[in-house]
């Protein structure tokens, strides 16, 4: 993408004199700014969505005042945070206290360099993309320990120590789960991983249900692996039910206790950046990335029709069971289906790969994370370790072996 941008810049007559390296550097800067802008805007949007989602799950309305339906609430909040007094506790370790949040933010923003948003929107097409993402994102723990230690606060220290233990423990099952996918593809390049998932095929290779060729439908093992990864990733980004580093009811705010204003906003920013990153990774590795779930426009029409049928059945079922009529899912699917049948252009657009699908998939993963967060209680520290070492890790190892055997059975690899 950087090379493309540089070429595009050089294609202008006025700018062509600046030389290749300068143009390359300029486009590098532009891309970095774009990624940072994406992260910042993403956080603002996600905070709003999270507040609305949690409100609806809790029979509330959420922000309603600033802007229509409170849409500008998080913007106002961000502005407020920027204006707040910058407080550094007197006995805090000043250097680490200032560096800590930035380390976390940089670690979580830099990982986006390797994330392919679409077939062309990719900052750096690395052949070790997956490895890069996993390794860089674990630098976050350094920042958290820095922040927790520098605060000179017992709660912060507890939070930081818990966070370090937690992130390091969950790195392992997450890594092994990803290796299972890498074993199928044979490449660490994220773009290659996505391209491997093109087209449609049978569910689990033999069951004759036509589904996209995504790795989540590749084998039962990868199906489980997707959920294992989701659980592990939830723990890695410190969200409920694994939010013990900042567990509000125990550690006040964990490692963020002493932070306020801009620095605290940085934590928030990186938290949502991490959540997005995880969602992107799940959709890249298991859900086909920017690939459309529909093979062509006829597939789109048929697929949406099936979804509508399911929605009708579900509505009737809910109606029979509880007496309530929930029209929103049904109405939405009906509208999309009808438009898919009426306007072939829409159907073709739906069938074409692109950033839309990437964001849709990542969005639904993020919704899952929010759903978890607003439903579950929090685990205890030792239970967290139990889940990591005794449940998730064996499961991911079994998955890795199972995937290998599966591939041998289906004939994808021969010895």
């Amino acid at each position: 993408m950087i090379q493309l941008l540089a070429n595009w810049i050089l294609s202008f007559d006025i700018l062509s004199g600046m030389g290749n390296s300068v143009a390359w550097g300029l486009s590098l800067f532009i891309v970095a700014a774009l990624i940072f802008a994406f992260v910042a805007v993403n956080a603002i949007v996600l905070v709003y969505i999270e507040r609305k989602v949690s409100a609806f799950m809790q029979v509330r309305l959420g922000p309603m005042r600033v802007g229509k339906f409170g849409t500008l609430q998080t913007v106002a909040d961000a502005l407020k945070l920027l204006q707040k007094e910058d407080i550094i506790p007197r006995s805090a370790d000043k250097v680490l206290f200032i560096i800590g949040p930035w380390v976390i933010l940089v670690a979580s923003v830099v990982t986006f360099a390797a994330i392919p948003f679409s077939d062309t929107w990719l900052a750096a097409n690395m052949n070790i993309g997956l490895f890069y993402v996993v390794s860089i994102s674990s630098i976050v723990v350094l920042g958290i320990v820095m922040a927790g230690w520098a605060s000179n606060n017992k709660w912060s220290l507890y939070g930081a120590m818990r966070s370090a233990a937690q992130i390091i423990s969950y790195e392992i099952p997450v890594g092994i789960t990803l290796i299972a996918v890498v074993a199928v593809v044979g490449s660490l390049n994220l773009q290659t991983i996505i391209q491997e998932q093109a087209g449609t095929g049978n569910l689990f290779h033999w069951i004759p249900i036509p589904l996209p060729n995504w790795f989540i439908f590749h084998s039962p093992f990868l199906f489980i692996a997707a959920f294992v990864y989701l659980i592990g990733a939830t723990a890695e980004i410190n969200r409920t039910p694994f939010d013990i580093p900042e567990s509000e009811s125990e550690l006040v705010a964990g490692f963020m206790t002493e932070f306020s204003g801009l620095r605290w906003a940085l934590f928030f920013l990186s938290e949502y950046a991490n959540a997005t990153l995880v969602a992107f990774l799940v959709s890249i590795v298991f859900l086909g990335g920017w690939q459309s779930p529909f093979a062509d426009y006829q597939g789109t029409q048929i697929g949406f029709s099936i979804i509508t049928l399911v929605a009708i059945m579900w509505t009737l079922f809910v109606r029979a069971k509880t007496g309530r009529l929930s029209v929103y899912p049904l109405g939405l699917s009906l509208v999309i289906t009808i438009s898919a049948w009426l306007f072939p252009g829409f159907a073709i657009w739906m069938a074409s790969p692109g950033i839309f699908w990437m964001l849709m998939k990542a969005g639904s993963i993020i919704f899952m994370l929010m759903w978890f967060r607003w439903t579950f209680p929090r685990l205890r520290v030792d239970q967290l370790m139990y889940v990591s070492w005794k449940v998730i890790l064996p499961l991911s190892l079994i998955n890795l072996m199972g995937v290998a055997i599966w591939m041998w059975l289906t004939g994808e690899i021969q010895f």
Partner: protein
Amino acid sequence: MGRLHAEEMVLNMGPQHPSTHGVLRLKLRTDGEIVSHIEPVIGYLHRSFEKHAENLEYQMITPFTGRCDYLAAMGSEHGYAMAVEKMMAIELPERVEYLRVIFAELQRIASHLVAVGTFGLDVGAITPFIYCFRERELILDLFEMASGARLLYNYIWIGGLAHDVPPGFVEKTYEFLDAFDERVAEYNQILTGNKIFIERAADIGVMTPEVAINYGVTGPSLRASGVNIDIRRTEPYSIYDRFDFDVPLGQGLQGTIGDSWDRYYVRVLEMGESAKIIRQALDQLPVEGDVKSAIPRRIRPPKGEIYFRSENPRGELGYYIVSNGKNVPVRLKMRSPAFSNLSVINEIGQGWMISDVIAILGSLDIVLGEIDR
């Protein structure tokens, strides 16, 4: 190689802390995450209720009793009114008795809803808390309808009630009760049966019956340990002997008898029993009767003293009143259940992790207003 020398760290939890249910301060001696000693420091909410009472007329004390246990104001007022009535040997009209029982039990449901919800909050589940408060608001609506206030009612007066209930109250209460059972099922679905919740609460902070009795623990926390003491049953006051209800006991369904989960679940079950009592009381409620007919013109209990106890949502609420025949008590002592219940925290909380101490504290369901008085 020399041994690694590790010191215990004193962690100051509170008075400003999200999960101490008010302004409680806990001095925790911690070894890593393990808590080796817990010392509750109280008094941040001291409002000298007992000294106030020594300078106020009997009727004027009633609003202050509600302010002690502000989550169960009706229960506190009920106990106080009954204590003074017993001293003065006042016979109450039937309608008053029934209405009082209805209000006390509604208050029990409301208080337990807060207990259940905040326990969920303590272990990290935020959503059940909001659901519980939604139902509590419905009960507060009923209270507001009857007394005009939502939290501190001053509704149960010595010798009667401040007013009769308005028309439509009985129907609205029935309506609430009909909807309530479904809600309880919802709490059970989202929280009680949740595996993470069970892991966090079951087998944590086990309180044996001996420990509970030795520390004077009362109420649902005691019954969760399997001790069948409910003053409504063992020493029926008011008209509780006319109702058919069960006393839920801790059975250790998910772990040991007397663990945090049992304390939580006893409260959930008690809400159902209270609903049962309210239903019976509403069915039997006499239509006729002046709720103010027995209110004495001058409240001057005869010389003497009394200790009267009643079953508040948190346990045995006792009023010890010394009268010298004047209209102001010489001494009024309140035996607050939450105070005794809190005292057991060091015994059952030792050796658990910080997270568990929070859970144990939440399962004891304390109200700081009542502890500090």
